[in-house]
Structure formats: C-alpha cells, structure tokens
C-alpha cells in the first residue's frame, strides 16, 4: 500500500506541473507567428519589433527552423507566415509568396590567396575533389581545404542547385553550420575555400577580417550586383502564406515590403528591393 500512495502522489505532482503552462489569460494580445529560414529570422524579428511599436495590440513571434519548416508550417497552418530564403518551387505554388529582400552567396577565400577568379567549372571540380591543389588553378603550392555547409541548409541547396551538384558528390574537408563559423574557418586557413551569405561576407571583409569574395562568372560579388539582380548566385527572401493575406497578416507583409524597413534590411546586410 505504501508504495502505491507514493506513486499517486507523484502522478498528481506531474499533472499539476504539466497543467501550469496551459493557463493562458484570455485577453492576451493577438499573436502572429512566423517560422522558417534562419537567414530571415533576425530581420523578421527586427521588423516585428517595429511593427509592434506601431500596433501594440499585435505580437510578432518569430521562430527559426529553416526554409523547409517555413514552407511546411505555412502549409499546415502552424504558422501564420512562413519564411523561405529561396525561390518557391513549382510544387509550392499553392502558397502566396512575397519577396522582402534579396541575399547572395559569395565564394570566399583567404585574403592572402593569390587566386583572383575561378570559373564555374573550376569551382565544381574543387568541390567534387577533382582539383585538390591550389597550383592547379594558378595558386600557391598548397592543398585546398574545401568548406561545405551542413545538410538541409538552404545556402547549401542554393549552391548545389546553381552548380548542378548533388550533396553526395561533394568532397568536403570541413562542414560548417552558420555563416560566421565559415568565415572564421576561412580567416584562419589561407588554403580554404567556402561559401557564405554575401551580406555577412561583405560586412566582415570591411571589418578587416582577412577574407576575399571571389567574383562569379566575372561578376564581382557585391551587394550592389545582388540588388541589380546581376549576381548569378543570389536568392530572394520570401514570406509565404497559405491563404491570400488579410487582416493583420496583410498589414504585416505590406509593412515588411515597404520602404519603412529598408534601414533594417540594410543593417542585416541584405539587399532591399525597390517596389
């Protein structure tokens, strides 16, 4: 009998503990939930803060999880708005997409690396392990350290898609998570090559971090060229919804696309679009 009462006691405690977070006050402010791309999330939460200041009755809740989650949550209705840092695919045309800004991917090497330019074919051969030495592309006498992004990241997807590669084909020496990790790895290794978000790369290069952005197809990797749409390896940053937006969702999307947030977009080193 003794042990049974112990168990009942524990169960009651558990029930109380699990029930506590469920007590929501009924008059809480209306919440818009955004989930998806970790590239867009910091920008979206800045835009959200400014929107909340103008409309105190609305709360903007931003969660990351990658573009695929943005698509999935928008489709399932788990989120009011999904964040997707790539162009929508044909099978995703049941969603409504709104482009906020553009982002580009830059191929980066160490500043001291004498190689000034690589052709698309050379980049493909470096990433598939056919070229393993900088000498083969006119560089110093050193083996190439190939840096790749982790599986599932949209930067990786965009890179693979642009060069028509499969992730199985890539012979990487280092696999990184976020952009900063990639930049630090290249900055610490004169023989490394990697690719990261162009905004972060241009910012860090200006801050004196020893990295160099390589041109692609002889087009310099600059924010300016991404804005013009010239740079081949760039992507739109999209907000997506399941239904045509209305009410607060529409208000928020209009606000995010307006010139009122261009300063925020520039602060995150993305490229705002002229409407």
């Amino acid at each position, binding site marked *: 009998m003794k042990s049974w*009462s*112990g*168990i009942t*006691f*524990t169960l009651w*405690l*558990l029930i109380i503990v699990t029930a506590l977070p469920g007590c929501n006050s009924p008059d809480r402010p209306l919440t818009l939930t955004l989930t998806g791309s*970790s590239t867009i999330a910091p920008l979206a939460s800045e835009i959200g803060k400014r929107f909340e200041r103008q409309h105190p009755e609305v709360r903007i809740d931003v969660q*990351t*999880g*990658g573009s*695929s*989650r943005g698509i*999935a949550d928008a489709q399932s209705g788990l989120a009011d708005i999904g964040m997707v840092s790539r162009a929508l695919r044909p099978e995703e045309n049941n969603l409504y997409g709104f482009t906020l800004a553009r982002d580009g991917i830059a191929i980066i090497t160490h500043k001291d690396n004498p190689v000034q330019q690589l052709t698309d074919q050379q980049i493909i051969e470096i990433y598939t392990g056919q070229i393993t030495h900088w000498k083969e592309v006119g560089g110093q006498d*050193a*083996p190439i*350290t190939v840096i790749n992004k*982790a*599986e*599932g*990241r*949209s930067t990786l997807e965009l890179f693979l898609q642009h060069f028509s590669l499969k*992730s*199985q084909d890539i012979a*990487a*020496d*280092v*696999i*990184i*998570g976020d952009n900063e*990790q990639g930049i*630090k*790895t290249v900055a*610490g*290794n004169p*023989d*490394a090559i990697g690719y990261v978000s162009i905004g972060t790369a241009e910012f860090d290069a200006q801050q004196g971090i020893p990295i160099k952005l390589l041109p692609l197809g002889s087009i310099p990797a600059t924010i300016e060229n991404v804005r013009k749409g010239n740079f081949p390896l760039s992507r739109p940053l999209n907000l997506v919804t399941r239904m045509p937006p209305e009410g607060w969702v529409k208000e928020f999307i209009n606000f995010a696309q307006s010139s009122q947030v261009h300063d925020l977009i520039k602060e995150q080193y993305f490229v705002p679009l002229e409407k």
Partner: protein
Amino acid sequence: MSPWRNDRLLAWCLRGCASIAGLIILLIIGFLVLEAIPALQQVGVSKFFFDRGWHPSSLASEGHFNLAPMLAGTLGAAGGAILLAAPLGIGAALFCHYYAPPFLARLYRRLIELLAGIPSVIYGLWGLVVLVPLIRQLEPPGPSLLAGILILALMILPTIALLADAALAGIPREYTQGAAALGFSRFSLIWHVALPAAKSGLLTGILLGTMRALGETMAVLMVCGNVVQVPGNLFEPIRTLTANIALEMAYAMGDHRSALFVSGLLLMALVMALITIVEILKPKSSL
C-alpha cells in the same frame, strides 16, 4: 505531531522527489524512442550501421543513414580526451594533496574551478581561432580529431581534477597516519594507500568526465570539421553524434529529423552501457 509522523511525512516527500527524478529520465527516453520510431521503421536498424554513408533526406527511400562513422568519431574524441585528461587530472589532485604548500594548493584549486566554469562555446571559439590554425601548420586541413581531443581534454580536466581531489580528501586519516607510522615514503603512500583507497571516487570522476566528453556539442562542432567519416589518423576531420544533431536538427524534416533522434538514442545507449561497465568495475563496497 509525533516524531514518528514527522518521519513518515519526510519519507513521503523524499519518495515523491525520487520518483519525479526517475520519471523524468524515463520520459526523456520514452520521448526519444517515440520520435525515433518512424526512422527505425522506415529505414531499418541495420541501415543505420551498414548504409553507404550519411546523406539523409526527408524520405527514407532516397537517403543514406549510416551512423557508424559518427559513433566512431564520438568514441575516438571522448576516448582520446579521457586518456589525456585522466592522468593529468588525477596528477593535479595528487599534487594538491601531497606535494603543494597549502597556499599554492588553494590557489591552484580556485584556478581549476575557474576552468570548470568557462562555457563550452568559449573553448570552441578559442579552438577555432587558435588551436585549429596551429594544427593546420602541422598537417592540413586543421579541424580534426586531434583538435577535438585536445579541446575535450581541456574541458573535462577540471571535472576529473576536482572529483579526484574530493576523493583523496575523503580518505580516512588513519590510513595515511598508519602508512606514515610504518615509514612509507610519500610515493609509496600515494601508490599503495591513497590511490587504492580513493579508487571508487577516482572512477566516478573519470566516468563523469567521459559523460561530459560524450555529450559536449558546441566546442566539438566548432573544431572537429564535421565531415562524416571514420578517421584514419588524428589529423582527419570527424563528426560526433552530438554535433550531427546540432548541425542538422534545425533544418531536418520527416525521416531525416527522425534519424537524428536515432543518433540521440544511440548516444543514450552508449552512456548507459558506460555506466553499466563502471558499475561492474567499481569495488562493491567502497571502504
């Protein structure tokens, strides 16, 4: 209230606390199993060990799900770290107890405690910007099993040193006094009396250190290179099970996500196996 009743109340409360602690572990394991089941069913257990590689996809039929290289990476990094940190940590504790003058011992202990308090991401950052470039000069690319071992050894060193210190402090005075009375040299005292008497505590320290090394994520993620492969030598990059989860969880969907829970389950199994082994090795009655 009679003292007897008080006793019973306390016993009940403690019993409740203990069951909650136990239940939490069971809930975590249950949750892991529940999340891992879809992948275990779709992919099959054998593919997690004998597939062509780790190229997960949200559909099991399209992806490859071999976790064995990451298991090898985890064991290699943690094992190497323990081999380095255990003698150093126990040596540090012995130094504190039997050789250092008291003021130096106190200072040294504070220093070790400070080392234990540094967040792992700081170790990782230091590893990424200082240690990895150094290793690269020895042999490129730099991020490697060796970098992981060194960082992990540094991180678990204070755990082992502090627990060894506590274990040595717990040795009954009569033991050391008896040894001194018998005319033992300081070395024989340590070797024949102190270490055997503190064996259980030292093992606990090493076990806790191993656990921390197995579970460490951020620092390992930053210095190990994260390439999925069985390392051929110390200079090749590896990916650990924890780094695998941290790298990919945020972006994983469907069977890929579920497969990451399988790697969590595998890590859990590894830890449980380790605890079992140490339980068996441990002297049955410690003193």
